[in-house]
Each structure stands twice: as structure tokens, then as C-alpha cells.
């Protein structure tokens, strides 16, 4: 079992699923390349996972929660999310670790967002990346992307439990 943590969120990966924290010191090129938080290897796909946690009690205490959600919904973070994905892909490609289709998952742990807003951000991110194989590409860079909250993550990946440390995860 592997456990990944980012702020107040914790992800449990049971065997044989593997994963690693990607944006830590081992990255080594953080001065010139941005990075997603986690890379999770599933049997048929690789997930690049970016974690945003406006419901983190610390962020809420400092009043940053609403500010983040407003910024995210306005699309101002789209370019940042795109760059993180592309730099991570390039890094992994240079390490010769790109093989399986890549799913980009952006976790936005916010009770202030509803599904309509998540759909809008997903559509926008799809255009930004882009996903699939637009002409004249022969292979996709990102197979697809998802914007999910904690609940949808756990519904989508029931074996890979995402929980909150402050709630006794």
C-alpha cells in the first residue's frame, strides 16, 4: 500500500497500484519546469493528478477558499493547469516513462462548486490541453481530463480512497 499526501488530502493506493509524489525535491528541475502533484499508475492508464484544496481548513481560516474558487471558475487557472500537464508530460517522456494513455485529473476539493461548474471547467481544460488526437497528430498527449471533487474521485476510483487528514483519514 502506498500513501500520498498533499496538504490535508491523503490518497491510499492498494497493491498493485503504484504512484508517487511528483512535485517534490526528487523532481530536480522545478526551477524550469512545473509539475503536477501526483502520478498514479493504473493497469490501463497513467493519471497525472493535480490537487487543489480550497476546503482545506487552513485555507478556509485565512479566507482563501472563496477567492480560489472564484479564480478557478473564471478560468484564470487554466493556463497554469495546462503548463503543469505539458511540463509533466515532457519530463516523463524524457525519462522514457510514457507508455499508457494519460488521464489528467484535477481534484478541486470544494463544497462551493456544483456539477454544472465542473462541467464548464472540464470543457475548458479539454480545449486548453488539448485532449485526443487533433489533426495532424497521430497519437494523443492527453487521452482525456477530469475535474472532480473528493466524492466524484472516490466514485470514479473506488479502490483508491481519497480522504481528509483533518477528518481522521
Amino acid at each position: 500500500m502506498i500513501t500520498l499526501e498533499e496538504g490535508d488530502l491523503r490518497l491510499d493506493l492498494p497493491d498493485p497500484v503504484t504512484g508517487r509524489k511528483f512535485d517534490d525535491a526528487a523532481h530536480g528541475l522545478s526551477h524550469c519546469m512545473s509539475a503536477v502533484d501526483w502520478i498514479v499508475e493504473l493497469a490501463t492508464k497513467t493519471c497525472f493528478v493535480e490537487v487543489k484544496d480550497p476546503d482545506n481548513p487552513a485555507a478556509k481560516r485565512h479566507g482563501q477558499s472563496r477567492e480560489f474558487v472564484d479564480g478557478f471558475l473564471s478560468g484564470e487557472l487554466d493556463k497554469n493547469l495546462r503548463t503543469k500537464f505539458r511540463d509533466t508530460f515532457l519530463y516523463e517522456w524524457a525519462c522514457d516513462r510514457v507508455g499508457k494513455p494519460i488521464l489528467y485529473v484535477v481534484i478541486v476539493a470544494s463544497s462551493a462548486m456544483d456539477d454544472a461548474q465542473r462541467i464548464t471547467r472540464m470543457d475548458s481544460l479539454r480545449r486548453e490541453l488539448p485532449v485526443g488526437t487533433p489533426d495532424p497528430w497521430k497519437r494523443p498527449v492527453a487521452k482525456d481530463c477530469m475535474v472532480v471533487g473528493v466524492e466524484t474521485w472516490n466514485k470514479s476510483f473506488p479502490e483508491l480512497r481519497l480522504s481528509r487528514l483533518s477528518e481522521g483519514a
Partner: protein
Amino acid sequence: MALPDALKRAACSDIGKGEGVAAATLNRVTRIKLKQFTAFETLDLTPSPGVNVFLGTNGTGKTHLMKVAYAACDARATGVPFPEKLARLFLPSGRNFGRLVKRRPGRSKAVAEVEWGNARVRASFSSQARSPASATVSARKVRKLVTPAAVATSQFVYIPVKEMLANAPGFRSLYSSRDIHFEEVYSDILDRAFLPPYRGAPDRTRRRLLDALRKVLEGRVQSKGEEFFLVNRQGKLEFTLLAEGLRKLGLLWLLIQNGTLAEGSILFWDEPETNLNPKLFPALIEILLELQREGVQIFVATHDYLILKQFDLQAGKADRLLFHALFMDSDSGNVACSSTNSYVDIAPNAIAEAFSDVYDREIRRSLGTHQ
């Protein structure tokens, strides 16, 4: 139905103060009660004195509810019997009034009741009722509390889903002289639109609202004979050539300009989103909220997420906004209503649920499990 305490206080604060109370507060609808009426088994609704937003799937009675309140306002102000106005708005087949009773085996009796503080109008009738005249009508303190002058100056308006201004020429005279099968809301809305403007310059609020609408419309509305035109830099554009969404905003411009929508009036608007580009929603919602701040009570029925969300985003703390979710209660099999002043507490939220279904499909597609 749970009504937040603050709203309960606001809804009741203007009741029972007698003749000295301003027409604005006396004219607000404070309660709507239905029993075995059309889709409803029982319903007891306490609306906000500000903005009321109805949502719910088709067939849960949003439009019926607004029509009952509108019919009662009309009966109170014009003296047309309440059941007669109901018949003209609902058009039961063959004017068979009993058809407005909720369908069930055997005889049953419907009640429709609307209150404005201590004033009340009530109609009860059986499923056997052949005509509106056979209904029993009772009124309480309607004439005593509200002076004829106050009633005369009060206005109430129902904007139906279908736009009518472009079809105005000849319609009113046709409607008044022939028995044509049109709900009376269509004739009524034209009567309101044709009211001439107030004499003198508009006050500051009215000017601000008209300016905001003029900006969206890029012009102003003018009537000539029975035709409406949008006057802008290009000249005069007849309404038949204007986008339907803009015609609706033009109607709103007329209603504000001629004082139909002013302090103390009531606006019922069925699906304001129809034919309107969503980019115009923020401006529309701001105007509705501003009207509410000026003392207009507003009832809106919507199926649109963005209308709902814009109300949520744009309403300030002082705005008196109440969401009413109408739904089919799975236990009783009857239409029920839950009201809240908080968007996140709307339950069930039929509009958000529709988006959640789409979101679920999107997630399954991303995961490659949508097949």
C-alpha cells in the same frame, strides 16, 4: 414548508397596520393556499415580499401557482370574480370549471386562496362545477384594508412564455370581440404594454433601470398605432424583425417606462430565459433585483441553471430572495414544495440534477467507461 425567520418577519411586518400602510406593502402576496387544484393536492406557500424563484420539473405546477396568484390580484383590483379570471387564464375545456379540480375518481372539491396580509380572496368549487359562476367566492377585508385608490395605483403584470408584442396589431380588438382560444395573459400583457408613459421625467431609479435596458437593447422602444419598434442609430426596427429575446427586454423597458413596474407592483414572469442569450442574463437579473429593491414583488418560474445561479451570485444580503423547489413527493405521490433563501440548500434542485447527470456521463467518458 420552512421559511427562514428573517423572511417570516419581513413577510409579516406589513400586515395589520390599517389604512396608513403604504400600498406597496399592502399589495404584496403573503400566502397562496391550494387544495386539490390542478396538479396540487395541498399547498401552503408563504412567498418572499422580494423575489420568488420557482423551479421544478415539468408538471409540478410552477405556472399554475403563478397564474392563481395573478388571477387573485386581478380579481382584487378589477372586481372580475376570482373564478372567472381563473377560467380565463386556465381555459378549461368548454369552460367546464370543475376540470380545474385535481383529477381523481368520484366527486371532489378544490380551493384556491390568496392572501395579502389580512386581506384574502378564496374560491372553492366542486369537480361537478359547470361554470365559474357556480364556485363559492369569499373575500376578507379586501375592500376595507386597501382603498380603491391604492388598488388603482397598484399594478401587477404576468409575462407569459410566448412573446406577444410582435403579434399585437389587431390582437386586442380580436380578443375583446371574438371568443378565441387564448389564455387571457396574452391580452393582459398587451394592455399593460400599451399603457402610455408617465407624464413628466422619470425618477432617478426608473431612469437608471431604463438606461441599463437601453444599453442592452442598444435603443429604446416606441409604439405607433398597435405596432412596436426599436429605435436605435440605424432607425426604426419593427418588432417582427427583432430577435425574440430582445422583444422581451423591450417589453420590460415599456413596463418600467409606463410605471406598470414600480414600487408596490407585482411581476409574474414565466421562464424569462426563453429566447434570451445567456450573456444577457446578468443584466436581466440585476434589473429584477433592482426592481425588488424598489418594492416590486417578483415571481419567476425557471428551468434554467444560469438564471438560478445568477440570482444566487448577484443577490446581496439585503435582497429578499426565496427559492421554491416544487417536486413530486415519492411517498405521497403529490406535488410538494420546499423553500429556502440559500441556493445550496435548494432540495430537490431539478436543474442541478440535470447537470449532475451530464457530469456523470462526462466523467464516465473520461474514464473510458461510458459504454
